[in-house]
């Protein structure tokens, strides 16, 4: 009888211990405990979008990459940020992904840019003689989507992600810096850069990704010349130009590394492209000057 009671007590206490353990163990919290940031959250259906883009890229855009494993690429991307504090992302986190997805770029086609995001990408959608980072696999899958993780479950934050101003080591900034470095390393022959001559504080800035990452990762053994396209907005202020101070500074930095540098104000095809959106503007008037 005493034995029975003893066994019963043991069983009950075991159950109590288990129940207590379940309640008190910090399990996966609900999403209400996610960290909150100022930037837009992870894109919904990120997995489907990234996978679809990857397959589209290796099948249709650049079939030479047919041997890339898109599923593996997605998994290494996921591993890079899920369940991690999005202010603590390092280059090590993304290295496996970079190694899997990197690929060579044809010579003379690399097009860098700074403060001309919309223009340069609209332009390369039309003119396939040039490729920006976003026309390579790494850029293609990440363009216009965002992602970040969170230590709490489900490990991914769809509500918000940190902006650069909140912390620099966030998933987006680290990704684009690494991808930009790689894009510069792959460049060869003549490379181009589109800069904005209508903005304040100079077309070339040392603090931009172009000024701080890309120019220092161009390989002088592979890249011979850098052509600068200094674009003004249609009807926009002409604050900087090829003869301006920031371009002179850029030239000297590049020449010191043994690159040949040339610069053109308002490179004609891009100027024409800008006129598509402003056909009635004074700067876009069709002029027939007796050329025949």
């Amino acid at each position, binding site marked *: 009888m005493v034995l029975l009671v003893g066994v019963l007590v043991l069983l009950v206490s075991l159950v109590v211990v288990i129940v207590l353990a379940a309640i008190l163990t910090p399990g996966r919290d609900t999403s209400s405990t996610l960290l909150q940031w100022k930037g837009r959250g992870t894109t919904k259906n990120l997995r489907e979008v990234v996978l679809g883009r990857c397959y589209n890229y290796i*099948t249709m855009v650049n079939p030479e990459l047919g041997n890339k494993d898109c599923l593996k690429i997605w998994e290494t991307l996921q591993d890079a940020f899920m369940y991690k504090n999005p202010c603590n992302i390092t280059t090590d986190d993304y290295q496996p992904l970079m190694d899997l997805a990197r690929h060579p770029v044809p010579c003379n086609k690399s097009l860098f840019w700074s403060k001309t995001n919309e223009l340069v990408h609209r332009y390369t959608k039309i003119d396939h003689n040039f490729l920006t980072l976003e026309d390579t696999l790494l850029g293609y899958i990440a363009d216009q989507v965002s992602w970040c993780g969170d230590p709490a479950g489900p490990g991914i934050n769809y509500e918000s992600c940190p902006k650069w101003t909140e912390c620099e080591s966030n998933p987006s900034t680290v990704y684009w810096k690494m991808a930009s470095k790689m894009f510069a390393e792959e460049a060869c022959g003549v490379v181009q850069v589109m800069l904005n001559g209508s903005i304040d504080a100079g077309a070339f800035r040392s603090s931009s990704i172009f000024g701080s990452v890309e120019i220092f990762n161009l390989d002088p053994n592979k890249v011979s010349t850098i052509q600068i396209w200094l674009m003004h907005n249609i009807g926009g202020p002409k604050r900087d130009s090829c003869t301006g101070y920031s371009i002179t500074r850029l030239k000297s930095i590049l020449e010191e590394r043994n690159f040949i540098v040339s610069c053109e104000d308002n490179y004609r095809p891009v100027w024409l492209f800008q006129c598509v959106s402003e056909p009635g503007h004074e700067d876009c008037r069709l*002029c027939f000057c007796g050329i025949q």
Partner: protein
Amino acid sequence: MDRTSCFRARNTPKWRTCRGSGRVFGGKVLLFSKDFSGVDGKKWKGEGTTPNLDSIIIGRCYEYIRIVNPAVGEKNCSELLEAFKKAFMNKDPCNILPSDYELFINLSQHSIPPNKSLFWENNQFLVSSYAARTRRYMPLGDTLIGAFGDLLNWCGQANNTEVDDSCPTTEECENNAVESFWRIASINYAKQSSGIIHVMLNGSATGGAYPLKGFFADFEIPNLQKERISQIEIWVMDDIGGPDLDSCGKGSVQTLETQLKEMGYDITCIDNYKSVLFLLCLDHPDHPSCPVVSSALSAQRGCVFSDQGGSWNRLTLISFAAFVLQIHFNLLNQFA
């Protein structure tokens, strides 16, 4: 290469040579360079189903509703893909009808914002470039339905035993999976269009800018909803350096204009619409048809401007104003 326009140029005896007539615009040739001619041992003459079709389509579907055009609202992309595949999987690839896609169309259709519709013939890449993924216009290729099919190829097999790497061409049989898809997609697109309708035609195309047998003529015009359309605007674009075979008021374009007027539509027609012309000129910046200078340079070169609303109109206005003022002064002097 311009595969979709190959399918859209069907019913012309030369449709299989449309690879040449499909415009390669902006030096853009898809790196996807498989040949159209059949390889020996394959059942059909056309290319096989695009590899990774399911993943590509699902990705495009979510990309469309999350990024390109979120106004479309929530859609279940897996459900859409299933309905799409149901139309042709495990069926005779020569017996797929447009109506087989009806469930898919019902699930995936969405309205086109008024004034954003852009129809076309013989200039697929130009249209796609100009529309800029719904930023300027929303051609069929920039709709959710278009995202499912654009530049892709697919077909099923009746027995589903062997996987064959080929699909029938429209020449081999008209009721194939891809052809029927674009037919019903075009019909639906026309029905969803409203406001000012735009049509971009190719004034340098052999056989005429407006093909009498084509998707626009056979499936789109008959399905336009007249009561919801205010105007139809036609743009006839010539290739830079290309022949001016057709233009507004001439040839097949005139046939189109007459046909639409008789149907009761209000029509305008523009040759070499300027905004699109700039886009064409990207590839030929120094061509005589493409001289563009900023106003600063123009003074130096002593240029004469040809555009409407240019300096001539201003000059005329000023002269007229001066004339009127002069008359007033004369009258005042007379009465003073």
